[in-house]
């Protein structure tokens, strides 16, 4: 388990990029980190990977401090948003570089996947397109067979087909190798179908986090119409996150879905529809409940 304890980091005086961030990332999960530009997502990943030193706080993996720990770093790989390759190196040469440093590196995986993705392993990476470069970086990272994978703006520049392919590869890797993946994006929709957990980073802190599956099960959107007058108080025994009434039809966002499904039919409604919520909607309502304007956060 990755534990982030009270992490703080500032680059200029009086402006904290991370301000006492505390969070726990469970093993064998895909953790999505979302936040607006400049929220501190990349900085957080760099601190976890010992690139930056935190001003305060600690990053622990299974209780051991990660900073500059060579043994732990052998189980970690980081793909930043701005990719770096040695000049005039081919994918094969880059893979050989990684192979020299990662004991479990599987060059056969790179060769096989490069063939699938139609990447010429002997061609200079500098001549590749942005998306192809990203594919090279992701292939090398996955081939390390590291236990902890960190991706910053993971699928940036990839077309939908390749994106899907890599999502499959990530899931496969997680299933096979007991891997923990932490990926950042400012796009919730991108992470929705792959992440198990999500954390929302805002002003240097995790504002909100949780398992997507339970969020989706718990939170429901309901459209309801009752005979006679009714208002928000009618649903006082339910955990209402948001309430809106237009005419005789009210739209409710309820935190406890199963409870709602049990109690609402008892009110004998004229209309009762349980509608699916997108991840973005769930976050919007959570934020609003916490008193934040979602647009400001994301």
């Amino acid at each position, binding site marked *: 388990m990755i534990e982030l304890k009270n992490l703080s980091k500032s680059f200029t005086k009086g402006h904290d990029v991370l301000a006492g961030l505390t969070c726990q990332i469970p093993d064998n999960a895909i953790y999505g980190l979302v936040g607006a530009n400049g929220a501190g997502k990349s900085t957080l990943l760099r601190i976890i*990977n010992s690139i930056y030193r935190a001003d305060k706080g600690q990053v622990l993996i299974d209780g051991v401090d990660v900073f500059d720990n*060579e043994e732990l770093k052998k189980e970690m790989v980081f793909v930043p948003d701005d990719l770096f390759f040695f000049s005039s190196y081919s994918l094969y040469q880059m893979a050989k570089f990684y192979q020299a440093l990662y004991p479990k590196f599987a060059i056969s995986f790179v060769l096989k996947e490069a063939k699938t993705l139609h990447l010429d392993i002997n061609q200079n990476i500098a001549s590749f397109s942005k998306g192809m470069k990203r594919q090279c970086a992701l292939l090398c990272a996955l081939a390390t067979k590291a236990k902890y994978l960190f991706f910053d703006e993971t699928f940036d520049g990839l077309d939908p087909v390749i994106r899907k392919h890599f999502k499959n590869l990530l899931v496969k890797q997680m299933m096979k190798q007991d891997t923990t993946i932490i990926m950042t994006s400012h796009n919730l929709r991108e992470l929705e179908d792959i992440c198990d957990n999500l954390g929302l980073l805002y002003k240097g802190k995790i504002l909100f986090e949780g398992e997507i599956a339970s969020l989706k099960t718990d939170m429901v959107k309901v459209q309801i119409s009752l005979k006679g007058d009714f208002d928000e108080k009618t649903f006082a025994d339910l955990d209402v996150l948001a309430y809106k009434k237009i005419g005789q039809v009210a739209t409710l966002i309820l935190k406890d879905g199963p409870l709602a499904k049990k109690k609402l039919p008892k009110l004998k409604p004229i209309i009762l529809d349980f509608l699916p919520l997108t991840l973005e909607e769930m976050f919007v309502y959570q934020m609003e409940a916490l008193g934040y304007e979602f647009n400001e956060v994301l």
Partner: protein
Amino acid sequence: MNSMKFFNFKFFKENCKQAKGLIIFFLGLLPLITIIVLIQQLMSQNYVQNFQNYGLATYFLSFLIPVALALALFGFVFKKKSVDFYLAQPLNRKTIFLTNYLGGLALLLLIIIMNTIILAIFGAATELVLPFKMLLDYFVYFTVTYFFIFSIVTLAISLAGNFITSLILSILIIALVPFLKAVNWTYKENGNQIRVYCNAEICPIKNNQDKEYHYLYMQYDLANYNFTTPVALPFIADFRVGDVVRTIILTIIYSLLAFISFTRRPMENNECSFKNNFVYHLVKCLTLLPFGFLCFSYLTMGNYSGWLIFLVISLIYFLAYDLIAQKRIKPLPLVLFTFIISMSLYHGMYALWLRIQTKDIYMKDITSIKINYNDLDLVITEPDEIQTFLGEGLNIDGRDYYSYKAKIEYHKQTYTTHLNLPGESFLTDYQKRHNLKSNVETTNYAKITDAFVSFWGNDLKIKVDNKLINLLEDNKTKAIKEKYNFATLELYYYENHELKHISYNVGRSEELANFVAHYINQEFLKHQKSFNFQFINLYNEEATDIYEQVLEYFISKNPADFLKYLKDHQNDPITDHKYIIAIAEDGSLKRTFAYLVSDSTTLENLYNEYLEKYANDPHVQELIAECQENEMGIHEY
């Protein structure tokens, strides 16, 4: 302890692979330039005084190679994406630093070793004087220099946020330390202004009544920078153990500082000059030091317009620095304020420095003067002689004078300076007056490593063996006999990190003269077989032109016959002073070789024989007539 803990060979190998172009370039460049320098050297003369001259290319590249290598290995810290890449690898900062640092040193060592081997090969295969001890000095000196520069640049990279700032910082570290050192304690070691006050009664000033002191050596200013020998100008720098040790200590200090800075470096400090504003301004102000110095020098010369121009140039530089490093000049009042403060401070500092480095030495307190003069090391200790020496130096106005490197002992401290003395005879007279022995008489010849026979403008390398050493040793105190005075032996040995040279006249001994004559003739005959070898002329100090011209004509008609004569007489002992030289040129090497006819009578016989044989030859008759017309007359034998 697992070596992987501090040095990751695989990582280094991969790093080298990605910088292989640069590494191969420098590995090839230095030896190539060295070979060119050596070939040039070989074509001009066979020795140089200091190893630095052989390593001229090594010296100049000592600024380029370590800098380029340090940037190739550590330059990743300047780019955010390369920092992400390197730091995310399964290596800690300590391993990254030590792998790159130690690996860089190993590469530099490899370059120096390769170059030393090239020098050694040239020394063995050619006639260049390259004693083993000199090669060792070369190796030590340049290894220390390369390591020193590499450590400084590594430190600068660890501290700075971009390429330009790291270079500026490197220059500052290189330049500031000798500066501080010079101010503190080394001004006494070299030149500077040393004024010797002379009591007017003891030493009356003859030409200039107002002159109350004598600048022994008027070298002002930058001479101080030669105190860090390894980074000094190669023409000034000597191998001084103290300086090498100091440089090694500094290298260790800088490397430790670099290690600490790198492992603690805020890696977000890139693509900018310095993270800390104060450090940025401090470094910028420090770079004004040389500008301050130049401004001040104009001021001391009384050139106020020059001072003003340089002040404006300095300000332009100061503003440009901001534009390059920060892409803006902000805040302008602060920039102007720091400029004024810095320049005022540097002017004050240089004024103080000038005061400190001006040393007044009173003549009466000088206890000795040491002068190296030709084959003599003169040590003058008598007070009267000291006053004569310095007194003469005070009155050289309008006369020819020589400048000698001298060491002056004063209050138990030695000051190296230059002494101006009138004419060479002044020292020769002193030598005679004191019956001083020359270096030829005092040298231990077992130390000799290289010997050349200097004969008719040509230096022939001669093997240094026991026989030669014994001959030199046995005859060193003997007087020169004119009969055998036809050549000198140029002898070399390496001592105290310097190539010592002794000219030994072969005329001191008959046996030595015959030994050398035999060697000269053998060399001549050996080379006559070589490609494009041809006679140029004959020479006899006492013979007439007609004799030479006619003999040359005979030789050209029948060279094989003449060569047979030379071969038959190559071992003749020297019998008289009338020697004849046959000079020939080896076209392929552009070198000349000479043959010594030890017994001129045999050649005279040959001449007469030829004259009789070709008496009816119209050309001979023509030559004789022509010479007679010129009232030369025919030499009668």
